[in-house]
Every structure is written in structure tokens, then in C-alpha cells.
């Protein structure tokens, strides 16, 4: 497992140079609440055919900053992005709320209490 730090403004350029569809399998977008309004966002990739090769791009952010969408590079990423929009109440370009949650559900279940 390799973890590479990136930032939200440079995310698209970083993943664009890194990702090749024939080489890397895109796993998912993940978010981890760090408390005090901070969140760690992760984009997780694994290599086809090679043992235990996982690359995680991570960026630290807060809940108000819009997250760039990687759908233009990875067409299957829209599911993961809709999920973090639901679970953390983030804004991602082109991703709508309502994959899992209804109007009367918790607004952003995985965000910390703060």
C-alpha cells in the first residue's frame, strides 16, 4: 500500500498523469472524518495482475470546499462520488444527493458530531 499526498486543486492533474485504464483498477472514493470540520479524502487504485499493489491518493480538506470530479478521467467514479456527497454532505460537481438518503434521513451521517 502506497499513500501519495495531493491537494484538491492539483488532484485532476495528478490522477490524470497517473491513471491508465489498462493498468490500474479504480476502487473507490473514500472519506474519513478527522473531527473539527476536517476530512481526509482518498482515491484508491489497485494494479491488475500484481500482488498487493494498492495506491491511495489522499487530500486533506474541509466540508465547505467543493471537491473536483474525476468522472472525466474515470467514467465509473460517479457512484463513489454520489456516495460521499450523501454520506459527508460534500459538494462534488455533477453529483446529486439522494443515492441512499431520503429527505427525512440524517443529513450527513458520517460527518463527525462537531
Amino acid at each position, binding site marked *: 500500500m502506497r499513500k501519495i499526498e495531493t491537494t484538491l486543486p492539483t488532484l485532476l492533474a495528478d490522477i490524470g498523469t497517473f491513471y491508465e*485504464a489498462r493498468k490500474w*483498477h479504480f476502487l473507490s472514493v473514500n472519506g474519513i472524518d478527522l473531527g473539527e470540520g476536517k476530512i481526509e479524502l482518498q482515491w484508491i487504485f489497485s494494479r491488475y495482475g500484481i*500482488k498487493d499493489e494498492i495506491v491511495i491518493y489522499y487530500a486533506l480538506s474541509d466540508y465547505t470546499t467543493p471537491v473536483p470530479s474525476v468522472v472525466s478521467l474515470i*467514467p*465509473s467514479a460517479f457512484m463513489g462520488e454520489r456516495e460521499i456527497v450523501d454520506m459527508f454532505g460534500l459538494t462534488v460537481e455533477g453529483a446529486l444527493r439522494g443515492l*441512499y438518503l431520503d429527505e427525512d434521513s440524517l443529513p450527513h451521517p458520517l460527518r463527525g458530531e462537531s
Partner: protein
Amino acid sequence: MKKTIQIPLGSQHISLLEPIRFKFECENEKIIGVDADVGFVHRGVELACTRSFEFKQVGYVVARVCGLCAITHSLSYTLAVEKLLGYVANDRIKYLRMLMVELDRIHSHMLCLAHTAENAGFEALFMQIMADRELVMDLQEAISGNRVQFDFIAIGGVNRDLTPELSALIHKNLELLSDKIDTLLGLFDNNWSLSLKYKGVGVLTLDQAYTYNALGPLARAAGLATDVRVETSDFPYEALGYTMVLESTGDIHARNFVRLREILNSIAMCRNIVDNLPSGEIQEKTKGKPSGEAVVRVEAPRGELFYLVRGNGQNMLERVRIKTPTFSAIPAMMEVFKGSEYADAPAILASFDPCMSCTAK
């Protein structure tokens, strides 16, 4: 004037085990656009894993994410926690875990095949495969004590041991099953009415498989050589006779064939496991509380299951991230529907073996 019509499928439909709603945009009989609503079974397991349950209990909670691949869920979680605790299981525990995962794969694949046959209108074949599947269900009940939702895996080992009588029963039932799968292989290949429903229908090309990150039997039917069993080193799969099953056409027929041949491969591996079972304890004490971050991938029947667990040295975990196979397969699924006939939609859907309770958690 609008040229297309919208036809819904679901959320309650005879061909669906679970609630999912599709909105098909159809031009005459052809589907040109798909919209899917997958959130009907969202319960909120991820939050409960970090708020309501301690890390020793969570293994039994995540098993309830999905009843079909419950064992892979508890296995991935347990592996992740064991990595954080710095515990390495002995060979007997590893072998017993692999045995249950492979048995689970066999019964899940057979259920999918039965369901695909039923949705293609072949009710008799559905009944036949369901009858054959009971051989595996009996094995699971004999080994673990329950037919589905067997909480077999615990942190630090497994909950039940394999006795010599059980090994004999496993050999007997797998022998019977292997003959039946051989017959099914011929039937799926040669039956004329099945070939009309399966061959050339619902094609996922290799390029699409790469672009939409297909996984599991879906990817292998399209010729994409990916299998987490060879991409991780947690279990000695190669030593026990694992071979990757690949097809090239990517249609429903190829997916059925990948499943049938994987069942044969799993049967061979189960026999090897039972024959070469090492001696040792089945349950060992683990010390400490999980701290740090661990990533685990396990090949579930439908593809790759991914767990990310982060702990901070306390009883409650900080984050349990579950990425399930069907969740990743949905983009590819929506792509395959486009261009096929509406009448084939239930069969195509069943051939993906979608698991909505996995997807929505």
C-alpha cells in the same frame, strides 16, 4: 413529439430478489438510456460499525450487510483488524477460512445460474439447479451450524473445527456436485432455447470492461484477467490449485460459463484443502486494540470486496469503509443495458448477479 417511452422495472418485480428500480428509456423495443435507483436497502451499517458496536462485535454486524457473501464480509473485516493487531493466523485457520469462502462461492454462483435460467423462462432448470445447490447448503450447515449467515470466522481464528466425518461428507457431496456441474456445462452450451436467450445478448466488450472498471466474473467473461485471489498474498490460493477462468465473448453465456467453470475450480480447491489440512489450533488469543490503517481485498463471489479499517487504539473504530463488488459493477451494468432489447433486461440483470444489500449497505 417525444419519440421514446419510459418503462420502469422494479422496485418490486417477479424477477428481482431485492429492490432496485430501473427506468429504461426505450425506442420501440430497444433500450437507449438507463437510470438506476439502488438505495432501497440503505440501513447505515458503516456508521453503526463505528458508533454502536465494539471492534470485536463488528465482524458479526458486517456479515449482515449481505446474506449471500456474509462470510467474505466477516473475513475481510477480520483480516483487516488482525493486520492492525499484528496477528498472523496459522495455516489451519487459513485453510478452514478458505474452505468456507470457496463453499460460499459455489452456492452463490449456483443461485445466480438458477436465477438467470428462471429469468430466461426456463423454470425447470431453475428447480434442477436449486436442488443441486442443496448439496452445498447441507455442507455449510454441517460445518458451521447454519445454512446462511454462519458466523464462522472470529478475530483470532474460526469458531468450529473440521472433524474426519465432516471431511468424508465434504468429499461425498462435492463428488456428486461435480458430476452435476459437468451435466450443466453441456446443457448451458448446447441447449438451443437457452442459446437464443444467452448467446450474443448483453455483451460487455473488453474495452468497456477496462473503462468502467468491471470486476469479478463480469470482467473475466469479457477477457479481463483480474482476480483478487491472485492479486493478494493473504491466502495460498496458487498452492491449492487455483486457475483463472477466462472467456472472451462477454455475453450472458460467457458469464454463465465463467461461473460454472469457477464452481469446478472451487470444488477442486475444496478437495485439496480438506486433503492437506494442516494441524494446529483453530482459535488463538489476540492482544491489544487496533490502531492504524489497514486495507484488505478479498474476492467475493461477485468480485472484489474492499475494506478499509482505521482504529486509534480504542474499543471503537474510527472508520470502516466497505466497498462492495456490485457497487463497482453498476456503471458497467448500465452500459450493457444500452442497446439491448427490453425483453432481455431481466435475464441480463440476473446474469450480473446484482446484490443490492451489498451495494447500499
